[in-house]
């Protein structure tokens, strides 16, 4: 069992910089004994000072590494409401309370498999960490890593130089046609899916609900395994409130629920009943 005293960490902000409009990169110093994480896991983050926001907010770990003997975590996020707007105001030396790493991360298969990453907008956050992991921790063990990255507009496709280093190829798209393919990133994936070796490729996707639902369809159509990171509103992040439930797929399981924070946030697309939720 984890040491109860150490299960809640204090993070100290090194920088919290706006990369482009409303999108921020937070770099934090975390305790040296912060538990190792698997890409796809998340943290519940809360400002240490004040009562707003009241609940923590879930964020994927964007990167976790040691630097000059210190453990550093990165969070990539977008302002999407009151909580994230307040988090965006934090500056160097401000403190945050961190629960985590939480949940089930990506399960990278063993063997020379092709790793296909599919990111929609902010969905790049955990996939960047996954690409880092594939290159650094599993060097030489895996097949090539390719990234499909779609976003609203060209300036939303950020970090491309870092990503180019990590992946053998990048396929880009924008909703407004200002860069790469003009249209949803899932079109690009569907177009290439026939060329993926069914038994030797794994898809990893993160993005808006509509996009990951489309990925579930593509995975089924081409019978390629696909792991997705699912988002649902959370209150506790540790499996207690049942706020984050998704319905499990399958016959006779209509009463079976999975908690995004505990059984997820990463699921095989076949585990989920995609018709339960709208949008």
């Amino acid at each position, binding site marked *: *069992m*984890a040491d*109860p005293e150490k*299960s*809640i960490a204090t993070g100290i902000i090194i920088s919290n910089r706006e990369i482009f409009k409303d999108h921020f990169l937070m770099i934090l110093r975390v305790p040296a004994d912060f538990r190792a994480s698997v890409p796809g896991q998340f943290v519940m983050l*809360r400002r240490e000072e004040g*009562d707003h*926001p*009241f*609940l*923590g907010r879930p964020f994927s770990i964007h990167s976790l590494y040691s630097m000059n003997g210190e453990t550093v975590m990165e969070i990539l996020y977008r302002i999407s409401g*009151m*909580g994230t707007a307040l988090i965006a105001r934090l500056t160097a030396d401000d403190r945050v*309370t961190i*629960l985590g790493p939480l949940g089930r991360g990506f399960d990278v298969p063993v063997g020379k498999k092709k790793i296909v990453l599919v990111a929609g907008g902010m969905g790049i956050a955990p996939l960047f960490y996954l690409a880092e992991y594939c290159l650094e921790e599993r060097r030489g063990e895996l097949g090539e890593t390719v990234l499909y990255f779609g976003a609203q507009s060209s300036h939303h496709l950020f970090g491309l130089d870092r990503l180019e280093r990590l992946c053998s190829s990048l396929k880009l798209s924008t909703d407004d046609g200002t860069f790469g393919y003009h249209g949803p990133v899932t079109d690009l994936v569907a177009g290439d899916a026939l060329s993926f070796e069914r038994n030797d490729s794994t898809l990893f996707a993160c993005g808006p609900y509509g996009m990951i639902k489309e990925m579930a369809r593509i995975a089924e159509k081409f019978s390629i395994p696909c792991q997705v990171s699912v988002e*649902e*509103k*959370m*209150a*506790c992040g*540790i*499996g*207690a*409130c*049942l*706020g*984050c*439930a*998704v*319905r499990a797929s399958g016959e006779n399981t*209509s*009463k079976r*629920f999975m908690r995004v924070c*505990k059984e997820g946030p990463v699921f095989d697309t076949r585990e989920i009943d995609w018709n*339960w*939720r709208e949008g």
Partner: protein
Amino acid sequence: MKDNNSRRLAVDIGGLVLKNPVMTASGTFGYGEEYAAYIDLSVLGAIVVKGLSITPREGNPPSRIMETASGMLNAVGLENVGVRAFIDEKLPFLREVDVPVIANILGDTVEEYCEVAHILSEAEGIHALEVNISCPNVAQGGIDFGVNPELAFKVTEGVKNATDLPVIVKLTPNVTDITEIAKSVEDAGADAISLINTLTGLSIDIEKRIPHLKNITGGLSGPAIKPVALRMVWEVVRAVSVPVIGVGGIMKAGDALEFLVAGARAVQVGTANFVNPRSTVEIIKGIAAYMERKGIDDIKDLIGTLKT
């Protein structure tokens, strides 16, 4: 928390002795195991588990959660694994922990409540039942048991007859006169009363002009409801003679102390567990520190000492 402190903090709830007055509120602490990585569960006064029904319940579709000013709305919808799965899969873990377990129960009919109560009474490791009467009565057109004195009486009486365990009845605040319901469940034989459950609320997304919660309305909890809860506890304490357990917006030791001073014999901590999983432990320590500072040897000398 050890030795002399534990003696001074002990309270008696309808025959169930707790080592301190701080329990967890139903639905906010899972089935206990979720918090084992964050606190030593055995320091708690008691663990109240998520509401149990006769068969598993699916709950509401998302979104189920919305943060509001100093609180949150939830429409989880009483999702639970069902009483039998609880006994088979969840209770074994709790039996190993040296802490009283209180099972929160719910139903669509009086008969369902009684059946759940009966099944739990046969299981080893349950120390009391808490009856959540904030549920629609299917037989009576869906009116909540907890808003009608006769229905509240019937369900309490039924559960009392179905079990030998102490029975705590948990009241809803969504009523005109809470003392009327409190007296009714006391007359029906309740050993203790806990209050309050969540206050019904609504939050709207003005961009899309849709409710934030798929269920439209939800239950408000957290610091926002504390003054309401405290007022209701104070009213009920003066209306009944059974022990009262205060619930609603308790985040810190000071909040818990307010309830004790108002006359609650124990408290439950709910939403605070989501914000800080160690809240309960910090509250227990804070109560002990307050007693130390005030020179109060026994918590009984603190309960109900509000000067008006």
